C-alpha cells in the first residue's frame, strides 16, 4: 500500500475498501462514494445562500427540519458544469468533520448512476497524475469493464474545508 501523494499528515491515509459504492457523474467524470456514507438522494431544492462562504458551498437547505449545507464539488475541483440541470441530484451524505464530529452534507451532482459492488480486484491506488481532480480527495480508482470510477474521499474534502475556512474567516 503506497501512501497517497499530497496527503496532509493530519488525515490518516484511507484505502478504499471493497463493498458497495454509489456512482455519480461530476463534470462528465464518473465518481464513486461508499454507500455507507450515503443517507439519501433528493431532487435539488431551494437553497439559501450563506454570505461569505466559499463559492463551492452553495448555501443551506431545509432537509425535513435539519439545516444541511450543499456543496458543488465541480466548483471546488474546477470541473465544467453540465449544459442541462434536468438530471441533477443532491446526494445527502454523512461525513466526518476535522473535529471528528459527524455532519450531514449535500453534494450537488450532474446525475446519479447506480450502486455497484466493487471487489479488491476492481480497485487500484490513485495514479499520481492524469486527472484534473486534486488527487488528495480521491482514495483510489475502480475499473468496471472499460469504465473508470474515481472513489471520493469525502472526509478529506471536509477536513480541508474546515481548515481552509478557518483561515478564510481570519481574512
Amino acid at each position: 500500500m503506497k501512501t497517497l501523494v499530497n496527503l496532509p499528515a493530519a488525515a490518516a491515509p484511507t484505502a478504499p475498501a471493497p463493498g458497495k459504492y454509489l456512482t455519480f457523474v461530476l463534470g462528465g467524470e464518473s465518481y464513486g462514494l461508499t454507500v455507507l456514507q450515503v443517507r439519501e438522494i433528493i431532487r435539488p431544492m431551494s437553497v439559501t445562500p450563506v454570505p461569505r462562504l466559499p463559492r463551492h458551498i452553495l448555501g443551506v437547505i431545509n432537509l425535513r427540519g435539519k439545516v444541511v449545507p450543499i456543496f458543488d464539488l465541480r466548483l471546488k475541483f474546477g470541473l465544467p458544469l453540465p449544459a442541462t440541470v434536468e438530471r441533477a441530484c443532491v446526494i445527502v451524505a454523512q461525513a466526518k468533520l476535522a473535529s471528528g464530529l459527524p455532519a450531514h452534507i449535500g453534494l450537488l451532482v450532474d446525475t446519479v448512476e447506480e450502486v455497484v459492488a466493487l471487489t479488491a480486484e476492481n480497485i487500484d491506488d490513485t495514479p499520481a497524475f492524469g486527472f484534473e481532480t486534486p488527487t488528495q480527495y480521491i482514495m483510489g480508482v475502480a475499473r468496471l469493464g472499460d469504465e473508470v470510477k474515481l472513489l471520493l474521499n469525502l472526509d478529506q474534502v471536509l477536513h480541508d474545508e474546515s481548515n481552509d475556512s478557518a483561515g478564510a474567516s481570519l481574512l
Partner: protein
Amino acid sequence: MSENANLLRDLFASFTRELDLARPGSDQGQFPMLDLLGNLRDEAASNPGSEGLSACAKEAADKLVGIIESGKLFAAEDLTWLRAVESTLGGHLGGTPAAAVIVPLPEPAAPSPVVIESPSIMLNLAEDGELLREFITESREHLNNIEQGVLALEERPDDADTLHSIFRAFHTFKGGAGFLNLIPVNRLAHALESLLDLARQHKLVIDRRIVELILRGRDTLKTAVDQIEARVSGAHPPDAFDVPYVGLTAEVRAIVDGGPSAPAPALAPLAESAPEPAEKPAALATATVKVETSKLDALVDLVGELVISQSLVAQDLSSLSQLDPQFARNLSQIGRVTRELQRVSMSLRMVPIRGAFQKMARVVRDVGAKQGKDVRLVTEGDDTELDRNMVEELADPLMHMIRNAVDHGIENPAARVARGKPATGCVHLRARHQSGSIVVEIEDDGEGLSQERILAKAVERGLAAPGVKMTEEEIFEFIFAAGFSTAQKVTDVSGRGVGMDVVRRNIERLRGQVDVSSAPGKGSLFKLIVPLTLAIIDGLIVKLGAERFIIPTLSVRESFRPQKGMVSTVQGRGEIVNVRGRLIPLLRLSQLFSVEGAAADPTEGVIVVVTTGSAVKCLLVDSLAHRQEVVIKSVGDLVRRTNPAVAGAAILGDGRVGLILDVHALGSAAFSYAQAA
C-alpha cells in the same frame, strides 16, 4: 412461632458462616455480620421467649457498630469476642434459657488495634462497571436530596417527613456503597445515618453544628462519587483513591456519644423505625422518564416540519374548503392539533428553575457562614419553567451574583443594627415570566452600590473623564467593565464587580440582558432578562435583495426609514446615521454580505437600530417582513467558523431556510469584512 424460630436459626447460621470468613487485619464480614445481628435482634424481640437472644444480639450489634465506625479492621480480640457472642447466641437458640449471660466484651478502648489510615478505594471496573454507573446516577440524586433536605431541616428542624427522607437517602446510599465494597464511603454514610437516626428518635436536636457536619459529610461523599465517576468514565486513570472520612466519623461519634441528651442505655426498640432500603425518598420523588436529548431534538424538528407542511396544505386546499364546510372543519381541526403538538413538544424541554435556586440556598449559607453574616435566602417563583439548557447556563451567573450580594451587599450584623435594619440580611431570588422572556431578580437589602465610589474608580481606571456629569444608569454600567472592582478588601469569595463582566457576557450569550438598580443604604436589585429557551427566538425577519435574514428581536431597538441627510460619511471611518442627535455607525448588510439587488440608497431602505452590549449599530436593509418566533437550528461547524455573523438558521413559514444574524459578531466582524472586500 416455629417459623420464627427457623428464621432465627437461619440468621444465626449465616452469622456463623460470616464469622468463619472473618480474619484479623481485615474488615471482611463486618457489614454482613452487623446486618445479621440487627435482624436477629429485631426478629428475636418479636418472638416471645427470645428476649435474652435479642438483648445479646443488640449488645453485640452496638459493639460492632463501634468497631466499624472507628474505621478499624478486625483485631484478634474482636474475633475472640465475636466467637463468644456466637456461642452465647447459640446457647439461646438451643433452648437453654441461659441466665442472660452477656458475653464478656473486651473494652473497646483498651486493646486498641492499629488505627489504619483511611482505606483507599480501588474500583473493580471490569466487573462492577455497570453497577458503578448506576450507583453514580442514583447517588447524585440521593446526595442532592440530602442537601436540599438538610437545608430545609435547618429552617424547620422538627419536620419529620424531611428527616425521614434524608435518613432513607443516606441509608440507600450506604447500602449501595457497601454492596460495591466502597468501604470508606459506606462508613461515612453509615456514621451520618446514625446521626439522623438519633434525630429521628428525638434523641438529638438538629442544630447548626449538626447541619454543618452533615453538609460536610455530604460534600465528602459527593467528591468520592465524582472520583468514582471520573474513573468509570475513563477521564481519570483507574487508580486507588482516598476518601477523608476518619475525621468526620470521629466527629459524628463524639456527638453520638456525648450528645447533650445522651440516651439512657436501655435503647428504645429500633424495629419500628427499621428503614426500607428499597424505598426512594418519597417526599422528593417524581415520576419521570429519561430521554436522550437527541431524540427530543428530532421530535421538535419533525413537529416543526409538520407545522410547515400543515400550513402549506391548508393554503392549497383553502379554495376547496369553501365548498365543503365539513372539510373546512376537519382542516382547521388538524391545524389546532398541530399547534398543540408543537406547544407540547416544545414544553418537553422545560423544567422548573427550582433546581438552580436550591443550589443558591447552599451558596448563601456557606458564604454567609464564612463571613460571619446572618443571611436568609427567600425564593419566589421556583416553579417558573424554562429550557433545561437555560437552567444550566444560568447557574454560573446566578452563583456569581448571589455571592456578590452576600459578600458585599449584606453588611455585618453589627453594621446592620447600627443602620436600624434587622441583623439578619435577606437576599430575594425571584423568577417570573414576562412577555415571552423570563426575569430573574436578585435583590439584597444590604448597603447598595455607591455611585461616588464607582465613579471614582472609573476615573482612576481611565474609563470616565473626571468632572463629567453622568446618569445613574451610565455609572452602574461601569461595574460590567472587565476587572472592575470597588471592593475595598479582597476576599476569597468575590469582589464587587469582579466577574460582573463575565456575568454580562454569559447572559448576552444567552441573548439576555442585565439591569441594575440600587438605593444607597437600602440594597441593590440585579435583574436578568433572558429568553425562556435557547431553542426558540423571537425574530424580526428583514428582506435584503432576494434574501431574508432574521434579527433577534431582543437586540432590536427601533427601525425607521431614513430621511435625506440623516446619513453622512465620515472620512475613513465609514457612514454614520444621525438618530435624534445621536451619531450611530451604519452597516450596509448588502455590502457586508455581498447581496445583489439590494437598495443602495438608504432612503429607499429601512434602518434597524440594534444594540450589542453597550454598542449601538444601524443596519441598512431593504424592508421589514414580519416578526416571528422561530426554532433555532445549528448551521453546522463549517458555516459558523466561516461566517461568525451567522448565529444559526431557522426554517421559515415557506419551508426555506432563513439565516439568524449574530448582531454582536456582525458589529465586530464588519471591519474585517470591509478589509477583505
